[in-house]
């Protein structure tokens, strides 16, 4: 009895309060703007692949290929001469190679986070960026892999990194975090490719069917034989990779299940891969490396840099292909907020490292950090701190987030800052360790520089090919989150719904 009286009193209070405050009826911005219909989405995404190659694409491709050739030259130089052509020398035997490896691997993390974690958390806004972010992940892993692969020197023996029985009767050193890295990164690469490809199957089938239909209509008079030939090519290419997808109900059921399984498998990878990368440092006893904060700090940094790169890629993409209705201000806002969140964790970690160095009362540890900020590499530390700690704080302001050009420039700062973070961690600790008599100073050689800058070209080449030949957004998944998919507003977790 008393219970129901209490209940009704509470209810009455609530009603009275609500009447008094008159809460506003807030509605999320729709994830696809301007009331677009399903057909528009299909056309928009498919036409990127189906229309004539734009001039900017060719220009970018040529520039990217030329830049990528730097990596080719650098690696050829290294293989034909030896690993000594890099600027590595005692005491700094880990220079740009590991810096670039961690830099690229970190960038990949945003793709996995978007495709796996945000999928499990039912974040509808992931749909219009996940495909391109996954592509970015894979290409970043490709670029990252080059560095440790060629750092072994005799690259034709790189297969020794894998536990394959051999006539030398030796195994890799399983106690070394570098070996864990091999497994972490290869697992990561494999799962990312599977995820990316599997998610693409329905869209490849769409591209296949559109080519088949155009061939049936045979309306090529104006366009000529080349266009027809291209459609034959497309039909067969996409038919192979669509693996017989017929859009049937049971196909979709299997697809959804497989997607969920892969999302579940990838979610731990978001955390584990960069944790293991951080073990490369944290398991050594060097002051400045040997800290327990490294795993979470590295993971946050990876997601931070990854979202920086997603913004760097998505904003020009949106402008070039006119995708403003699909990548809306809400998407940019969310990405900026993730940068803000992870960037703040990174900033906190920088400060916490100093606190622990003082609190731990270990003179070597405190020296390592004072040396980091004020020693011979002070300029790198300053670069890192200003780019990574101050830049994202601007994302608190809506005005900043709304200014696409500014967001793009800041995303570049994030990329630069995160590269410097890895440089600072790797080089400062090695250059000034326990023994002052063995202190040194590291500078990269021209081969280091060529190899690294070339990877941006390689990355761009792969990304441009992706844009040209593959659907850059998951068509069906974008449709799920459109207001048109929920015309009566029943679904609360779909994006058209109210709070």
């Amino acid at each position, binding site marked *: 009895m008393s219970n129901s009286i209490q209940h009704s009193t509470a209810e009455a209070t609530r009603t009275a309060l609500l009447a008094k405050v008159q809460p506003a009826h807030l509605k999320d911005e729709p994830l696809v703007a301007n009331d677009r219909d399903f057909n528009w989405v299909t056309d928009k995404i498919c036409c990127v692949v189906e229309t004539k190659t734009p001039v900017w694409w060719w220009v970018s491709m040529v520039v990217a290929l030329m830049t990528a050739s730097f990596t080719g030259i650098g690696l050829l130089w290294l293989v034909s001469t030896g690993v000594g052509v890099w600027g590595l020398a005692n005491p700094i035997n880990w220079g740009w190679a590991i810096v670039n490896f961690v830099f690229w691997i970190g960038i990949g993390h945003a793709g996995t986070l978007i495709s796996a974690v945000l999928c499990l958390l039912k974040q509808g806004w992931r749909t219009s960026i996940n495909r391109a972010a996954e592509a970015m992940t894979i290409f970043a892993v490709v670029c990252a892999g080059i560095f440790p692969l060629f750092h072994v020197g005799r690259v034709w023996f790189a297969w020794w990194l894998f536990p394959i029985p*051999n*006539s*030398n*009767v*030796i195994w890799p050193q399983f106690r070394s975090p570098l070996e864990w890295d091999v497994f972490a990164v290869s697992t990561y690469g494999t799962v990312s490719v599977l995820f990316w490809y599997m998610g693409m199957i329905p869209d490849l089938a769409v591209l*296949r*069917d559109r080519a*088949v239909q155009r061939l049936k209509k045979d309306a090529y008079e104006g366009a000529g034989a080349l266009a027809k030939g291209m459609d034959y090519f497309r*039909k*067969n290419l996409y*038919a192979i990779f669509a693996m*017989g997808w*017929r859009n049937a109900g049971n196909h979709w059921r299997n697809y959804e299940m497989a997607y969920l399984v892969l999302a579940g498998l990838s979610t731990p990878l978001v955390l584990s891969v960069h944790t293991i990368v951080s073990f490369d440092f944290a398991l050594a006893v060097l002051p400045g490396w040997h800290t327990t904060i490294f795993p979470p700090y590295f993971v946050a940094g990876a997601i931070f840099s990854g979202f920086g790169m997603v913004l760097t890629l998505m904003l020009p993409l949106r402008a070039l292909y006119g995708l403003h209705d699909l990548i809306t201000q809400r998407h940019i806002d969310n990405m900026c907020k993730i940068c803000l969140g992870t960037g703040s964790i990174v900033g906190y970690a920088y400060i916490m490292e100093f606190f622990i160095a003082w609190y731990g009362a270990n003179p070597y540890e405190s020296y390592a950090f004072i040396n980091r900020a004020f020693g011979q590499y002070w300029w790198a530390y300053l670069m890192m701190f200003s780019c990574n700690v101050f830049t994202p704080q601007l994302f608190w302001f809506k005005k900043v987030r709304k200014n696409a050009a500014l967001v793009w420039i800041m995303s570049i700062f994030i990329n630069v800052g995160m590269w410097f973070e890895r440089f600072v961690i790797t080089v400062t600790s090695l250059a000034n360790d326990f023994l002052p008599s063995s202190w040194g100073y590291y500078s990269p050689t021209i081969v280091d520089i060529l190899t690294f800058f070339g990877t941006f070209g390689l990355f761009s080449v792969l990304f441009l090919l992706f844009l040209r030949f593959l659907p850059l957004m998951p068509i069906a998944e974008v449709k799920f989150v459109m207001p048109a998919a929920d015309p009566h507003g029943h679904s609360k977790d779909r994006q058209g719904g109210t709070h």
Partner: protein
Amino acid sequence: MANVFPKWVNTIPIKVIVAAILIKTAVIAGFTYYFTPKYTRVGYAPTQPVAFSHALHSGQLEIDCRYCHTNVDRSEHSNVPATEVCMSCHSMVRKDDPLLAPVRDSYASGEPIPWVRIHKTPDYVYFNHAVHVNRGISCVECHGRVDQMKVVHHDKPLSMGFCLECHRNPEEYIRPPEEVYNLDWERPETEEFKETAVGFVHDWKVNPPQSCSGCHR
């Protein structure tokens, strides 16, 4: 929508997988058999400039290995004897045998006999003969029954796996020091000897390196 490919295309993936497994197995098996030292090196028996028979000298006449290979227990390199060592006997024994003509020529001219090298470790492997023979590892472990060979051949693979097999379990190969040059010696298969062997390893502080830099310096 009509099918783009005919139905039999569905069988391609399984065929490709089966073919890939078969080809891979064949390649791995072929490589393991034909391209490892067990095959590429074992059995190498070049014709030497002099028809010297170890079976006669070492086996039948029981001349100690160290009579000719004088440095084996003192140096990392086990030397091939100079012509003078041959002549220490053959200036009196069979001094006019036509088979020994190249030896006499070499002695007269001072030009060494161009023996063909059979056992060769790569230049990045540092193998020390003295530490092995002085710690109870017999010649026979790496060179086989040279005392029974009329023409010397490469008897053991001498691959890295071959080295490591012993470096990982030295007590299974170690023998009493007085039996090192006795290629005929048979290891007693008794518990007692096993204990003795473990004792050798312990007492002589035999600690065969298994790290890379143990042999690759």
